[in-house]
């Protein structure tokens, strides 16, 4: 039995939902950002697997775009974490109340 596209779809879905569970369950903003990176990578894996199936490199271009967006998101997210949570403080996203109505 050869590896078909369904195997890649299943693997990407499992990785994506592990990322979703990480964002839902953890309170640490760093681990939440890492879970978001996991979700980005699951999407990238699908883009590249489908590009390989149809032999279209537009999937590769879009995966490149996703990597760029992930890098920008990580930089801005980490800057927000550093400015919101100072050094030597307890890091918990539930403690941030600036936007609470």
């Amino acid at each position, binding site marked *: 039995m050869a590896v078909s596209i369904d195997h890649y779809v299943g693997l990407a879905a499992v990785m994506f939902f592990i990322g979703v569970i990480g964002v839902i369950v953890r309170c640490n903003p760093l681990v939440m950002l890492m879970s978001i990176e*996991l979700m980005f990578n699951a999407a990238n894996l699908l883009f590249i697997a489908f590009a390989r199936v149809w032999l279209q490199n537009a999937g590769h271009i879009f995966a490149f775009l996703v990597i760029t967006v992930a890098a920008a998101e990580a930089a801005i997210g980490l800057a927000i974490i550093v400015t919101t949570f100072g050094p030597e403080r307890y890091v918990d996203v539930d403690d941030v109340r600036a936007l609470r109505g």
Partner: protein
Amino acid sequence: MIEFWILAVILVASAVWTIAASKPVYSVVALLLNFAALAVLYVTLSAEFLAVIQIIVYSGAILVLFVFVIALLSSGVAPFAMGPNRLPKIWLPGGVVVLVSLGFLVYAASQAVPASVRPPNGPVGAANVFGSVSDFGAALFTVQLLPFEVTALILMVAVIGVITLGGEAMRDAAPRGHERKVERAMREAILREGTD
């Protein structure tokens, strides 16, 4: 075939380790393992340029940024606090969301027409074959030029955002540096007075 299953096991195990690790540094190590395995998987999918980009950008840039922030936030002697997890109060709605989404995905996959996997027009690593650097670059700079330009715009917006956020922190830190300079000048003046 066998390499796919080995890599799949590594990917899922390291993803679970990422979200379950007790310290953020362990999460970073698990994520590094995940990205490396993913790069190998990209090579098996004949996306060699993206495999290299995965290693350089993700493992080289993003994860180092994570490590820097972890070092910055836990600069004291105390170990980095993890916080409680929200599992007790969230597992029911979260589980329902995950199960419904997975069910929808399985349904959609069962409805899809199976795709026939065609072999690429040459060996992996050769020039001008699908997924090679020249193939990717030719597409990036001709047909897909607009997404490439959008990429540049996204990066510039990110740079401006980070400088704006960091600028606020710098403005807060500036008076303290000035005070320290004044204090040192005073101390030196007192020392000079004392020696005279």
